[in-house]
């Protein structure tokens, strides 16, 4: 198999896997980056959300062959030190409960803020409705997004990627 190369959290990455393998399983099983979660496998829950060239995508249905030459940002690359406004806001609101969906929630929210720095409730509904939380933390997620929106914008991450996927 020819290697597939892409940028992962700002660094070059090369993998030799079946080109039809979803990005999710390359991240989790091939590269051992388990911050991105499996929830449904059919793009219905958002737990696997990562950024592909800054856009939020469901990595469970994104083939690795379609990632070639592009830049992937995962939760591990959002900031080097939990300094992204969303991470700080999530902590301030104690948003997570079990926490399993939160990587995807934060990545979806980061893409929203990169696009709309001051989102309305309707913007949040639109951007976040694809992300399921069975613990029911939606109200706190909404508060955390508004809180993050009121903070200074994210600084560049240590990887050199514009954190937040802009």
């Amino acid at each position, binding site marked *: 198999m020819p290697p597939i190369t892409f940028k992962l959290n700002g660094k070059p990455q090369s993998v030799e896997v079946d080109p039809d393998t979803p990005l999710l399983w390359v991240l989790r099983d091939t590269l051992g980056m388990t911050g991105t979660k499996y929830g449904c496998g059919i793009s219905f*829950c958002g737990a696997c959300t990562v950024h592909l060239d800054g856009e939020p995508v469901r990595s469970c249905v994104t083939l690795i062959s379609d990632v070639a030459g592009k830049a992937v940002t995962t939760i591990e690359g959002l900031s080097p030190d939990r300094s992204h406004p969303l991470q700080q806001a999530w902590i301030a609101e104690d948003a997570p409960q079990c926490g399993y969906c939160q990587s995807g929630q934060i990545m979806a929210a980061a893409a929203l803020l990169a696009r709309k720095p001051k989102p309305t409730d309707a913007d949040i509904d639109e951007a976040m409705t694809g992300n399921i939380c069975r613990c029911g933390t939606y109200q706190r997620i909404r508060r955390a997004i508004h809180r993050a929106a009121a903070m200074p914008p994210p600084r560049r991450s240590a990887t050199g990627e514009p954190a937040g996927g802009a």
Partner: protein
Amino acid sequence: MAPANVTSKVSRRDFLKTSSAGSAALVIGFYLPWEAPLGAGQAAAQEAPPPPPSPNPFNAWVKVGSDGSVTLTVAKSEMGQGVRTSLPMILAEELEVEWAQVRVEQARTDPRMYRSLGTGGSSSVRESYLPLRQAGAAARTMLIAAAAQKWGASEKECYAEKGAVVHRPTGKRLAYAELVEAASKLPLPDLNTVALKAPSQFRIIGTSVPRTDTPSKTDGSAQFGLDVRVPGMLYAVIARCPTFGGKPKKFDPAPALAVPGVKKVVEIPAVGRGAFTAGGVAVVAESTWAAIQGRDALEIEWDLGPHANESTESLKKQFEELTAKPGKVIRNEGDAEAALAGAAKKVEAIYELPFLSHSPMEPMNCTADVRADRAELWAPTQFPDWNQGAAAQATALQPPAVTVHTTLMGGGFGRRAQADFAVEAAQVSKAAGAPVQVVWTREDDTQHSFYRPASYHRFRGAVDAAGKPLAWFHRMASTSISAFWDPPDRAKPEESEVGGAANLPYAFPNLRMEYAPAPSGVPVAWWRSVEHSMNGFVTESFFDELAAAAGADPLAFRLRLLAEPRKVTDPVSPNSPPLDTERMKGVLQLAAEKAGWGKPLPAGRGRGIACHYSFHTYVAQVAEVSAGPKGVRVHRVVCAVDCGRVIHPDQVKAQMESGIVYGLSAALHGEITIENGAVKQSNFHDYPVLRMNEMPQVEVHIVASTEAPTGVGEPGVPPIAAAVGNAIFAATGKRIRRLPIRAPDLA
């Protein structure tokens, strides 16, 4: 010195062997009660081999290290309920250390540190509150005594604060680190009589400290079961028979083995009572994706087993037949039949509830490394020792040879109060001869769960011409958790099903409840709030119907029929604390006041109220909805909770918010249906759950109380569906009698 301390010295030594050896430490072992809070059906766990004999009587440990560090070792699983925050808060309060200084260590199933303990039944804070305070107070007392000895002072002149002992007259101060060695040689005070702090002195309990686990849940570093990575491990998925009780007749492994990355295809047998696994054909591969591809390629012919004809329709027919005749009498006061016969106003209604899947965001999984003489399991589990015993049995090992490491759980909700995932992983690892992570896809998780029972309720009620309540008649049929799990000679089918209905607190002069179990092959078990999730809805909805028949305000009717202060005992759980009608009135009044009960609403909107007592906790909720032929929108939910003394107010609120969302998912969307013996739904597209765009504004208000703390993980669930249904009635005049709420029922 109490006799228990002799044991404690032996087991303290044993415990220390399991942790950092060498340095001195003050170690106190203690016991958190584990009263099988799941109730009936619990005999299931007893069918698995008992946990290994423990050389100690303890299941929790406090260790103050010579560096002043404080470690709480306990087998309480974190599934989002905040147990790794609330438990150290209680300990730190009595030990007089900063809360953030207490590290929580998840106990392994090592008999030197562990004795039967699980996480369920909203019991962790309720059962741990006093023992944790006693252990913390004992350690504090010993550290104070050690300091007093060093100073040649009286203990009465010394006090503890911020991890140090202070000599009041001189202001001299010794850090715990400097006292640990001396304190560890002192006799342990009797935990039952050690002096506890006065609650008025609490400085941690009752505050909303930040959760310990939140930061790791914002950067992907929190490790859940599916994140376990063991050197050399393989991944597996299992093809299970779509019908319950079916098994492979024959299969061809070749197409699966031809998939790149697939290493092995192995058949694993079903395990019956004691774990209830489906068995099937496991595809073991180098990656999860390869295993999934391999399973897709498998060709299996199934023996569909004894339940292949069961369906949601056949079950409904059974329910109708069962409730057409008398059931087992659960409660009988006065003469409901006679009162109904002569009543001026009668109301009859049938309520129906479906099977439900827990669907935690992290699907079931377990990683196992089974060797010839021992095994290690990494399991996101609520019951590690059940997993240990069941995995041991499935691999012909002795339980002490099996160690279970409990991981973080991506949601539990009762689904992880099981052993099936652990048994399967152990079987596959043994057959593959390698460490294996068995991954359940979302489809597996949806179609091979242990479901919330389905139920059917025939109600009759009556009021007289003046609106005075006369009779309440409730005949219930359901699939039963106890009937499914317990051996037939020990099963008490009603005991797992009637809770929260049999102890109806409203003062009807004539009241009768009957129950009948419906035979079914669909596995059922504990779903967040268990039977209360059904009975909270049906009793509070039908009661609302009677309020309407009486021409009474739903809140006023509730308060009137809660009547004079009484304690109502649950006839099937007579040893459980009885329902206190005054505390129920308290939450009703608080929720109503905060919701603006009785104040005008915009056109098309309605308010509904419901209350329920479960897991020793009182909850009332007021829902504000708009509804019409196209559907229902829940705008606002105001919740009042009385859970006794509050450890962490914000986490009580978080659990109420969570329970409301969980219950709303079920009320608005949740339904598992059976066709030809198999579950029809498979993933979130056909088993939808509440999402951000449907999230109402939720406000939680806590009743100030000095009563003992009670659970909050589950009690937020039971009232919400009734509150919404009652609000729909207020808005539209349409009565919701089956869940999930369907458009035809609104038209």
